[in-house]
């Protein structure tokens, strides 16, 4: 091997060790600075997509637009009825909480973000969204869609943020399963099979847990990151493990992670 090869090898080894041993905050900032080099391309891709959307809207026939407006008006009226009912429940809930001395729950402040990228490595499940610190996004903010829980914000840049999806080893969620009388607590662990990313494992369930396929799994609120009551998925299968000492279940996620285009970030 020639001398320049040795020198280059030495430099690369030193660079790798130096980067891997950086303090986590410095590494995060450096990572955000390097990923900032892709902002023009992300912007260009976003503008192209927007232009394509606008073109497709311009090509939509007027009859179709009128039909969609009528449908949306009907849906809007229905939601308004539900909203008034929910407001009444909220007032009742607040009154009862005050009487029993339970602290009030504050409403979420959701902000819509567009998915602009996915993890290029095969061993992580993360996405990039076009919301960052300029929009008020903070680390660990819950991310969801109307179908259910998506994950949590793991890194925040100025204009973009990285979201760790449910099923990634870095995103464990405390959940509740079962009906109102027999609620069991468990933890959503990383998926056992990367093939089907709609399935994740639910572990740490007691051996007395009464499970059934189709039961709803919701966040328990433990851990302080995810608010209580967000739908995670449904039980697909379960089994006893550890010689019958405890149970594990497979949960089919409510959100199709592969088809995510827009997500809601819950602002503090």
């Amino acid at each position, binding site marked *: *091997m020639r001398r*320049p*090869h040795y020198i*280059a*090898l030495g*430099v*690369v*080894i030193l*660079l*790798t060790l*130096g*980067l*891997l041993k*950086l303090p986590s905050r410095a*590494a995060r900032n*450096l*990572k*955000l600075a*390097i*990923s900032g*080099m*892709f902002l023009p*391309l*992300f912007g260009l*891709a976003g503008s192209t997509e927007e232009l394509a959307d606008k073109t497709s809207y311009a090509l939509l026939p007027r009859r179709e637009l009128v039909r969609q407006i009528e449908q949306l008006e009907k849906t809007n009226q229905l939601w308004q009825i539900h909203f008034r009912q929910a407001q009444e429940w909220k007032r009742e809930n607040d009154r009862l909480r005050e009487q029993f001395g339970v602290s009030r729950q504050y409403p979420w402040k959701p902000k819509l973000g567009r998915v*602009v*990228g*996915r*993890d*290029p*490595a*095969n*061993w*992580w*499940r*993360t996405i*990039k969204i076009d919301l960052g610190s300029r929009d008020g996004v903070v680390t660990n903010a819950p991310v969801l869609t109307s179908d259910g829980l998506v994950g949590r914000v*793991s890194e925040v840049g100025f204009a973009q943020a*990285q979201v*760790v999806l449910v*099923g*990634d*080893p*870095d995103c464990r969620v405390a959940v509740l399963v079962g009906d109102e009388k027999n609620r069991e607590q468990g933890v959503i662990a*990383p*998926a*056992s*099979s*990367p*093939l089907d*990313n709609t399935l994740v494992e639910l572990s740490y369930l007691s051996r007395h847990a009464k499970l059934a396929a189709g039961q709803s799994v919701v966040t328990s609120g433990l851990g302080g990151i995810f608010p209580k009551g967000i739908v995670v998925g449904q039980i697909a299968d379960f089994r006893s493990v550890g010689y019958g000492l405890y149970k594990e279940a497979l949960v089919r996620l409510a959100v199709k992670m*592969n*088809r995510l285009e827009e997500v809601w970030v819950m602002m503090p």
Partner: protein
Amino acid sequence: MNWFNTIAIVVVVYLAVFLQATSNELRHWIGVQIDLLPSLVVYASLSRGIAAMSCVTVCGGLWLDSLSANPLGLSVLPLFLVGLLILRSRDLILRQEPFAQFVLGASASAAVPLLTLLLLVNTNVQPLIGWFSLWQWLVLSAVGGVATPVWFGFFDRLGQALNYRPVGETSFRADREIKRGKQ
């Protein structure tokens, strides 16, 4: 060293990383996100020198890690080691042969994830791996093998289109020149 070629490879690496981070179709259909960097490193090692190969591995590795949940710097060393190994033995390789390019691309695309995983496990991070990772590994190798001859063809055409063509040899010989006039 032809800097235009090196810059062209680095630009393609930049676009390839962006494409890997934004395209979701293959991952949706076959469950694998393809990696084009090892095949580009093979091209840089076989066609350019140590400086170009180092540029490609360092820039490509850092860009990939910055868009991924990988610890920063993780992908640089595996890419560089594979590139250096090919660079060392490139005089023994029939680098113009598409089959040799395919084999090298497939081997590099198989070696890089293994080396990266080895480093990743040593950084106390738990990646998402299982039996299905074997399928992902096979697809990555095959795609890397197919992509390598494509890169050779692409950069050759780019070079032909944008570089000055070498001046062909003339039939002029000084010893056969007819000198006119008085001696």
